[in-house]
């Protein structure tokens, strides 16, 4: 434990209450964070974590309760008010401006930067900050739009950590980062805490919660279940606190026998310049296959290329034996390839439109007649999908944006299910930012889709997901396939291949 920690809390949250319409998102949340403490906030989807973060960072005003920072009650009714009270935030959604340079992004919201840009004096400070996060080769005058998503996330983390705040809130900061990048973040967070700052760390990665944080507050259904020192917790006990019961474990995969006889998807020689080299895969109906690789391994690019979303990709892709022209999303969709992006907000859901619209958006020909919606068919299809996805039918009319992250993801995945025209389901990191319970529900949906004859191909970095869900795991490292695993596979082997590649060149299958 850092020496700066004291028992006197720096931040105290007392009885916070927040309702949205008739939904009570947070009901009396209370916890406190000492100076130098890294405090984790965990919970199921819809548990109220994000709402608490929003209230602490000045994005939502509590209906009741109080927030004390350094002993004083604070009225955090705007982001600026929160910043003046010493609260820095790394939002759940990436919040850097691509049109600005790295330095300009670091200056945004920094109270120490005055009205006139003092590029030279702040430049030195920013340089040190970026170096500490492993961004030594990123120039301050580079435009953020030219950086990778991982680098952009690190820029946002650098901005929050560099504000010398009293409370730094990090809402799923490592969700899009590779292990190496995450390690930099952990080190930087420890440094900030060691300087006497309070850190609120929200994460679904329970391993990092236990490895990094001092105490964990678990929320469930809008209320705080418990605040426990990590020394007294295990992943299992944490999951029990979050869910109220041990999560249901899916049937273990039974190796190759899940696949049918017919090849549904055949991909050969898939290359994306600079990212993927000569990727081959064949999937049979009913098979669930995973491409396992860290950020930048090319796993995500493989899925996007098969979906026709990478114009520069070259490959021979066949669905049920019929060739699909690469680089054309409409051709891929027409061939029966459905794609679920890892960015549901930018590339998936119509956030301000109802759940029903989102679920039925991809099957309008089925629910319309001469371009007019057939209400009976609409209602029947919707009811079936809502049940299939395990959603609350009463919320079908609510906007998707009002749902929790896990339920949004269910809608996104559910949109591709129950369609006869979909033969191949591609999912790029399908449970990103989704808690344990939501993850199990999405896994069940994917298993069900495979059982109905689809070929499912997903990318993931999480060992647990790879081992639980996939019949076949193909590991990737630096753009090339390392190994294809069927049947029993040790997680440690997968992790080694994902992080270090093949031991020798001879192991790389071609």
């Amino acid at each position: 434990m850092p020496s700066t920690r004291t028992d006197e809390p720096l931040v105290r949250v007392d009885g916070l209450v927040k309702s949205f319409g008739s939904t009570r998102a947070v009901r009396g949340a209370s916890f406190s964070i000492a100076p130098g403490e890294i405090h984790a906030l965990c919970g199921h989807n819809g548990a109220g974590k994000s709402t608490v973060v929003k209230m602490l960072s000045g994005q939502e005003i509590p209906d009741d309760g109080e927030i004390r920072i350094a002993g004083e009650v604070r009225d955090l009714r705007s982001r600026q008010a929160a910043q003046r009270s010493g609260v820095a935030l790394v939002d759940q959604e990436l919040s850097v401006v691509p049109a600005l340079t790295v330095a300009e992004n670091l200056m945004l919201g920094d109270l120490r930067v005055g009205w006139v840009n003092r590029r030279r004096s702040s430049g030195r400070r920013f340089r040190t900050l970026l170096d500490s996060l492993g961004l030594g080769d990123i120039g301050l005058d580079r435009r953020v739009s030219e950086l990778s998503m991982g680098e952009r996330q690190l820029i946002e983390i650098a901005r929050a950590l560099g504000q010398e705040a009293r409370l730094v809130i990090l809402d799923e900061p490592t969700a899009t980062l590779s292990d190496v990048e995450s390690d930099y973040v952990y080190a930087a967070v420890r440094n900030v805490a060691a300087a006497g700052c309070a850190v609120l760390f929200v994460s679904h990665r329970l391993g990092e919660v236990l490895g990094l944080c001092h105490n964990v507050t678990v929320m469930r259904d809008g209320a705080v279940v418990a605040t426990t020192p990590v020394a007294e917790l295990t992943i299992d006990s944490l999951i029990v606190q979050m869910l109220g019961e041990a999560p249901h474990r899916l049937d273990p995969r039974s190796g190759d026998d899940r696949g049918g006889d017919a090849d549904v998807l055949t991909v050969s020689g898939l290359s994306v310049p600079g990212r993927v080299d000569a990727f081959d895969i064949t999937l049979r109906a009913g098979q669930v296959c995973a491409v396992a690789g860290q950020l930048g391994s090319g796993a995500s690019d493989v899925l996007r290329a098969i979906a026709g979303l990478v114009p520069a990709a070259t490959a021979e892709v066949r669905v049920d034996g019929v060739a699909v022209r690469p680089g054309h999303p409409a051709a891929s969709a027409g061939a029966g390839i459905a794609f679920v992006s890892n960015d549901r907000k930018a590339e998936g859901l119509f956030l301000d439109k109802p759940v029903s619209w989102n679920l039925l958006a991809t099957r309008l020909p089925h629910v319309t007649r001469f371009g007019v919606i057939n209400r009976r068919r609409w209602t029947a299809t919707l009811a079936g999908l809502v049940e299939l996805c395990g959603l609350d039918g009463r919320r079908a009319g609510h906007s998707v944006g009002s749902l929790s992250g896990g339920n949004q993801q269910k809608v996104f995945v559910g949109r591709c299910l129950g369609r006869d025209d979909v033969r191949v389901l591609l999912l790029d990191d399908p449970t990103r930012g989704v808690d344990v319970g939501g993850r199990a529900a999405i896994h069940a949906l994917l298993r069900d889709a495979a059982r109905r004859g689809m070929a499912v191909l997903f990318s993931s970095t999480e060992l647990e997901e790879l081992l639980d869900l996939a019949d076949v795991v193909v590991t990737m490292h630096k753009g090339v396939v390392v190994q294809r695993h069927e049947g029993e596979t040790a997680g440690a082997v997968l992790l080694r291949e994902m992080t270090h590649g093949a031991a020798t060149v001879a192991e790389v299958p071609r």
Partner: protein
Amino acid sequence: MSQALRRPETLLPLTALGITVIAFALIPTYTDSDISAFDVYNTFQIFARLGPIALALGLTMIAGEFDLSVVGTYALGGMLTVQAGQENFAYGLLAAVGAGAVIGLVQGCVIAGLKLPSMPVTLATYIALLGLTSALSGGLTKTYSNVSVTLWVDQTVLTYFSPRSLITLGLFGIAAVVLTYTRWGRELRAIGGDRRASRVAGVRVGRLVVGTFVASGVLSALGGSLLSFSLGSANPDPGVQPLIVATAAALLGGVSLAGGRGNTLGLLGGILAVALLAEIVTVAALPLYVTQLFYAGLLGTIVVIDAPDLHSALIRQRARLRFESARPSRAGTPPHRQI
């Protein structure tokens, strides 16, 4: 240069200005006229006429908004200048600038406060302001009798300039300093680039939007005032041509319709290119429709240059070339049948 290749739109203002300067310099080769110092002076006079509204529009576009009311404020500013400034030009100027600020303030508050899109709000304001200007003037062109002011604003300074064109250049200079060296400029591009991210980062988005519309109103009204001083009269309806030309200049200056992109120097390049073009058309005695067709072609070209698919096609082509040169053995890809 490598930066320019990554973002070809940054080359727009320089290319446009370069082409028009060459076309201007070559006037004697394709017409009977020679180039005189007066032609350069006249180009800067056209720049002075359109510059303030191009700058006003450009600022709102960088902030991710679009101010259609600039021409309405331009007309009202010109009319107020004539009507309130007969005795003393300063009263007219103050009335115009004050009205511009109030119009911008009201529009900004409505747009930021009610989270309305700027297009319909500013369109309504544009129509209302034209009506108000007509009501003020009885629908007639009003003359400005203070001849000394008219003579002063257009007198020749340093051979090529007039006080009016120098004032307009000064406005661009101030805008350049503010946009490049102050927090306001940085945050203006931030809210145009990604409003949600800016809000999360702690930018006061509402205040900035209001401030931008106030600046736009003041600049447009000032532009109208300067024009009235110069012409010695005010027209209640300047038509839509100034709006079209100002939009073309802003786009040519590298400002994106999507917001977040653009700078004052680019805007200056864009408006100077447009002014030079207008002067070329006058000197070469080209018919009006040539200008209109040219602007249509220009806008079409700019929109295509800005097209995301063209950007990705460029990236794709560059990536393929790089890939094929690095791996000549994989240059040939198998043929595909489209489904």
